[in-house]
């Protein structure tokens, strides 16, 4: 039971990183990406590649993974950020589909469909993190650092520029914002931080394959952000916890027919999401539908 909970919390903190980094571009810059799992995957594969062939130290794997994630995001960002909202969603969907093909075919790096096995554990200055009880500490620290970085960014002039662009792109440009550049930087930062989650995930499981980095994962991360509360600090973490705990809770309900548990989960998810968006479109942590501010 303890091992089970530990595993759950580790996954929650890794998915929280994914949610927090997606929320940075979605909630503050209004960039809706369906390719977030790609950068999760790039981080995982790049980190694993370094760990397996060169050096497992996080001072090697993390920077390489972050640079790989950041550079790859430029491929998406440079052409796609010149188009508006819904076109970016379509472009990111295209990248997601393309990336899954590369992940399954580039055997030398990704191990193909079969994936990579025997990924070394995290190595922090010579200290290898094997035990889940130690690993949870690492993932939580990583989450806290990433939250801190994003919090600082959001409350800086850069964060205000992002929100201005989200609210009115033309007005932001009219007040001196280089909109394509600022959007590109935000996507690169988000993707580089996402790659950190990939490194942690790969070294925690010591096994990865393409199934963890497909469109379902991108959709799941987006659902975590929306359900928790887009554009809020705690929302993505609440969303990640909820969507990972819920399946386990449902499977503990004895009176449900065990064979139908999968479909029941889907029905509960679907209903929950629809009701939430009707009654609380800002998410669990977000503002209520009718704002109370401004009324005197």
């Amino acid at each position: 039971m303890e091992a089970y909970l530990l595993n759950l919390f580790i996954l929650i903190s890794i998915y929280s990183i994914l949610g927090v980094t997606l929320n940075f571009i979605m909630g503050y810059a209004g960039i809706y990406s369906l390719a977030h799992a790609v950068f999760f995957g790039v981080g995982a594969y790049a980190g694993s590649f370094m760990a397996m062939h060169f050096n497992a130290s996080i001072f090697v794997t993390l920077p390489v993974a972050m640079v790989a994630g950041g550079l790859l995001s430029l491929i998406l960002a440079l052409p796609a950020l010149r188009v508006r909202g819904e076109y970016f969603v379509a472009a990111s969907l295209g990248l997601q589909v393309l990336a899954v093909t590369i992940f399954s075919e580039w055997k030398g790096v990704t191990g193909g469909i079969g994936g990579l096995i025997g990924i070394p554990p995290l190595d922090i200055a010579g200290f290898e993190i094997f035990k889940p009880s130690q690993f949870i500490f690492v993932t939580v620290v990583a989450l806290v650092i990433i939250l801190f970085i994003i919090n600082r960014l959001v409350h800086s002039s850069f964060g205000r520029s992002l929100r201005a662009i989200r609210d009115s792109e033309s007005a932001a440009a009219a007040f001196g914002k280089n909109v394509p550049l600022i959007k590109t930087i935000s996507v690169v930062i988000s993707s580089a931080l996402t790659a950190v989650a990939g490194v942690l995930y790969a070294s925690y499981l010591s096994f990865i394959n393409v199934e963890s980095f497909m469109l379902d994962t991108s959709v799941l991360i987006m659902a975590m952000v929306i359900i928790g509360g887009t554009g809020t600090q705690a929302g993505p973490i609440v969303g990640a916890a909820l969507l990972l705990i819920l399946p386990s809770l449902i499977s503990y309900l004895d009176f449900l027919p065990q064979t139908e548990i999968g479909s029941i989960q889907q029905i509960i998810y679907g209903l929950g999401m629809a009701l939430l968006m009707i009654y609380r479109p800002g998410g669990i942590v977000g503002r209520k539908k009718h704002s109370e501010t401004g009324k005197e």
Partner: protein
Amino acid sequence: MVASHTGTQDVLMEIRNVDKAFGGVKAVDDVSMDLRAGIITTLVGPNGAGKTTLFNVITGELAKDSGSIKWLGNPINRIKPYQAARAGILRTFQDLRLFSEMSVEDNILTAVENNSLPLPVGRAQRTARLERVEYALDRTGLSSKRKIRAKDLAYAERKFLSMARVMATEARLWLLDEPASGLDPNSYEKFLEILREEVKQGVTVCIIEHNLDIVIGISDRIAFLDRGKLLADDEPQKVLNDPALRAIYFGERT
């Protein structure tokens, strides 16, 4: 305002033979005019005369088909909107385009920040920016609303916030697109007072306005556009007393 000093000021912006067509319709048709430093030039003309299009062409929001524009003597023919802003040319929008989810003070603060990179700014620069924000809040009477989201403001307050974003910057030229439309008489008196004060301090203004009282009250010079053509660009009395222009303005086309 004193009309006699027009024409003697330095030319800040020189617009020459500018054309802009949408499909077959010439929205701006061979317009040439100068915007002179330290005065208020009002653009008047019926709906669809090309006034807003001219603003869009000046700031680079729309690419012109031909013609040239000089700013402080330098050509700015391929300028982008963010470059125009950094060069000191700011505009407001008829539909305001506030940063609606952001607070009043963040709307103004972000307007004075034009650094793209996520790097820390120095304390002195930060203090200077915050002082500009305070100044704009104070002048527009929005100080008590600073924490309120833009979208939760009343209509007149939203108009003043649109002005405050421009006032806080150090832009030399303000292009204001119907900033006073829909304001009650009290609010627009206040608006005119703010505008006169800023011009006295050296700002140059080009304003699109329909309300004749306001036009008469603030203009140092009036430029009259109709169907994309500049029909007059002169002292207010001359333009307003021209029977042909009056006929167009009041809808009695001949």
